[in-house]
Each structure stands twice: as structure tokens, then as C-alpha cells.
């Protein structure tokens, strides 16, 4: 009798794979397996809550690193990283004139990875400002502010201002000489405004000089007020990038 060719049975690896990734619980979380067909790859981008910010397809020239240098995405990544490290820092920090400085010292010396945490937050903040500036330059030099993207450029300028304000409000929190005098210099500049200068300065500081009220105000703005505002503008910014057809392309 001629041998009949039969489909091979499942090997050991396949059985393990099925056990791990084709079970009821796993599939309730991830509805498809690893997307290895174009159809599934588009589906995963379109249906995943984190990925659906993207379109499913994109023009070839726009995935070239040298077109965007990933600057906008990296700015947002810094924002996410700052949120994570910032939340962790909040566990150890009390915004009071009596405690703030001691808390930072304790964070650096008594908390495991505390120094690393603070360093990361600091350098990410600087990196975010530089990345936002570079992103603005990228958008400008590629003419990506032109119609129909005019308003998104304005949103971008607002995001740049909010980034500076977030960094500036965070600058006071360690309550060391660097923080105190930098904020004193900065708020003195605000006070020199021709109209409502002293009023603005008073509003910002909650008094005539940098003290308890200023620390509370800067802290509240830094950890919740400004992040909320910037999140709204970020959402609009990303949404409009999509609505305007992704990145700008030559006509």
C-alpha cells in the first residue's frame, strides 16, 4: 500500500505555546496572537487602545528616521517617563518649607534607588525641553505648519510654553539655594510686567516673596494642574495630526 501523507501532529513546542497563549484567559486579554499577517497588523493598530493613536498605514518617507528624528514622539515619551518618576517622587516628598529639603536629602541617601529616581526626573525634564525645541525646529524646517495644520502649530507653541512652566514649577521643589534663587529671579521678571506685573507675581507666589505659599502653589501646579492642562493640549495635538492626514507631505 502506498503511504498516505498525513498532516504532522502538534509537536511539544506547539503544545506549550497553545497552553500559554491560546487559553481562555490569555485570549480574553489579547484577542489575536502576534500579528504576523498584514491584515492582523492593521487590526492590532486600529483596535489597540495604545496603538490606535496611529493610522494603520503610513507613507514610506515618514518612517525614515531622518524625516522626523522621532522628536515629537520622544517628547511625549519624556512626558510619560516624567509622570512615572514624578509619581514615585511624590511618595517621598512633602511640599512644606520645613520638610522639603530634608525629604530630598533623605530620598537621596535613605531610599533605595532614590538618587537615581531624582536624577532621572531631572534629566528627563531637561531632555523634554530640548526635545520639544528640536521638534519645533523639525516641524518648522519641513514646512509642516502649512495649511491645513496652522492651528496645530499654535497648539504646539502652547505645549512648548506649558513644558517650560512645568519645568519651572518643578525647579522650586527641592527648596535648595539653586531652586530658591532661580525662582526668585524668574518671578521678579514676571513682576516687571507693565500691566498687572505685581499682581501676577503675587498670584504666582501667594505672597510678596518665595515662601510656604509659593511652594504649595508651585507643587500643586507641578503635580496636577499643569499636567492636566498639558494632557488636554497633547490630546488635541495628536488628534489633529491624525485628522490632518498624518505628517505633512509634498503636494
Amino acid at each position, binding site marked *: 500500500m502506498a503511504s498516505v501523507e498525513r498532516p504532522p501532529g502538534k509537536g511539544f513546542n506547539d503544545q506549550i505555546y497553545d497552553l500559554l497563549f491560546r487559553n481562555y484567559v490569555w485570549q480574553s486579554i489579547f484577542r489575536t496572537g502576534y500579528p504576523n499577517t498584514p491584515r492582523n497588523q492593521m487590526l492590532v493598530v486600529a483596535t489597540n487602545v495604545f496603538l490606535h493613536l496611529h493610522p494603520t498605514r503610513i507613507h514610506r518617507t515618514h518612517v525614515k528616521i531622518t524625516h522626523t528624528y522621532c522628536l515629537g514622539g520622544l517628547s511625549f515619551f519624556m512626558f510619560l517617563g516624567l509622570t512615572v518618576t514624578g509619581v514615585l517622587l511624590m511618595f517621598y516628598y512633602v511640599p512644606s518649607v520645613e520638610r522639603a529639603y530634608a525629604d530630598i536629602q533623605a530620598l537621596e541617601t535613605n531610599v533605595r534607588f532614590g538618587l537615581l529616581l531624582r536624577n532621572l526626573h531631572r534629566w528627563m525634564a531637561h531632555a523634554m525641553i530640548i526635545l520639544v525645541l528640536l521638534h519645533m525646529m523639525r516641524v518648522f524646517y519641513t514646512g509642516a505648519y*502649512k495649511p491645513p495644520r496652522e492651528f496645530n*502649530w499654535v497648539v504646539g*507653541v502652547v505645549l512648548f510654553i506649558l513644558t*517650560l512652566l512645568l519645568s519651572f514649577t518643578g525647579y522650586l521643589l527641592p527648596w535648595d539655594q539653586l531652586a530658591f534663587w532661580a525662582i526668585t529671579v*524668574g518671578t521678579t521678571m514676571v513682576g516687571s510686567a507693565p500691566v498687572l506685573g505685581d499682581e501676577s507675581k503675587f498670584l504666582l507666589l501667594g505672597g510678596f516673596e518665595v515662601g510656604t505659599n509659593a511652594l504649595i502653589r508651585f507643587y500643586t501646579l507641578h503635580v496636577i494642574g499643569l499636567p492636566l492642562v498639558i494632557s488636554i493640549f497633547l490630546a488635541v495635538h495628536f488628534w489633529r495630526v491624525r485628522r490632518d492626514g498624518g505628517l505633512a507631505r509634498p503636494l
Partner: protein
Amino acid sequence: MVSQAVSAVRARPRREREEEVLVWPDLVFVEFISAVVFSIALMVLSAFINAPLLDRADPNTTPNPSKAPWYFLNLQELLLHMEPAWAGVIVPTIALILLAAIPYWDRAADGQGTWFGTKHAGKITVWSFCIASLITIWLILYDGAKHVEWTEDIIRGTGLNSDFIWPTWLDWARNLRGLDTGINWSDLSFTIGPFTMFEDWRAIPLGIPGTTTDPWLLNLNFPSFLSQQIVPVATMVGLPLLLIGFTKHVLGWIQTRRDIAILIFTGFIAVFIVTTVVGQFFRGQGQELRPPWDIVVVEE
């Protein structure tokens, strides 16, 4: 018949879809890798370089120099050269408004989506960056009276006159403040109708604060009004206009509004960088110009 045959031979334009790639994997992986690279780089940076932490804040001990965060040092630099209201508030406000207004002024849709999309864009960018940086450095040196120092050093050094000091009749050319003190303004006073210039230029209700007790009154305080407001503002408005005119009519590189936007935006970036670097690395005690290795912070 002939024309039909020709059009049949001509290549069909590529469809949009054929120019597209899938976001997963082509874009998502690029994003993922750049995020990983940045995470590692920042981790390494944070492992080796600590965030600064000085002594506990003490309102009674002022560090000299006191500096704002680095991204505001450009404004702090401006503060040294003009009325604080201009440097700290009006100039940045106007700069941000102009920045946001670029797309409403340069409305042509062409030239988007490519780097340096106009014919001369590359040249304009390099030219504008260099000239704006040089002029900004030159202006900072001038207001720091460095030309006075150097002229004195050179003339003394050559042995022509070992006791040479900057002549008093050139005091007005020392720096901006020299316009106040180097010119005898009371000799130049004149009258217009019932008003004696420049004494009667005080107390004009324009809402720009001077040194009067009432902030709603403009205290022209004439010589200082000239050196701290008129000259700096004329410089900030005039030099960009001169740059546009020169680039357009002499170099002939400007054809569209986009070219002007590139010229001015690049100049803005150059000034932003130069003033930030000078503020961060070249300002010592009393905000004097110093080389970076010569800057010591003293607490007073």
C-alpha cells in the same frame, strides 16, 4: 489613434497605497527602539551625573550670580541690556505670539513635507544662523564694554601709550549706559512750545512703568529711556528688518514668505541659543562677562 497608443505606453502613476507601509511593524518598531535607546541613555546619564542639590534655601544669603533655570537665561540676558518690562515680559510675549502666527502669515501650502523646501532655504538657514549669532555676540560684547577693555589693552601693549585709557569724549560709545552718562543731555535741552525737552517728557500716561511712584505714568527719565528702551527695541526690530532687506535685495535669496519665515525663525533660534549659552557659561559675579573657568558663585 496615435495619441491613444502613446498614452497607453506611458507609465501608470503609482497608486498611493503602493507608497505606504504598515504602521505595525515599520513605525511601531522605530518608536519602540527610540524609546529604549532614550531610556538606556537617560539611565546611564542618571547613574553617573547627579542632579544638583545645594544648601537648604536661605532667603538671607544671596548667591552671586543668581541665575534663573537655563531655559530662561536668554530672558535674564536680555534683562542686562534693557528695561525689565521689555526683557522679562514684553519681548517674550511678542516673540511667542509671532511664533504662533507664522502659519497665518506664510499661508502658501507648497513646500511642505520636505526639509528646507525652497530653492535657497539651506543657504538662508546657514547665513541667518551665523550672522544672527555673530551680531548677538557682538552686541553682548559691546554692552559689556569689552571693546573698551581690548582697545586699552592693545594700545598699552604696543607701547604707543602705556597709560592709555578710553577717552572721556568717547564715553558714549562704551556701552548702552554710556548713552546716559557719556552725553551731557542738559546741554542739548530745547523747547517745543511750552515744554522743555527733555525734562517735560516725564509723566506721560502710557502705562509703561519707569521710576515714578505711579506705575501708570511713563517716566521717560530721558537718557535712560533712550538707552534702556528706544535703542534696544529699535535694535530688536531694526536688525531683523535689515537682515530681510539685505538677504532679499543684495543676496537675492528671498522669493517667498516662506524664505522670510526661515530667515527670521533661524535668527530667533540663533539668538535663543547664544543668549542661553552666554547666560549659562559666561556670566559671573554681578553678571559680568567672564570665561567659564573663571566663574565662582559667592554667597553674600
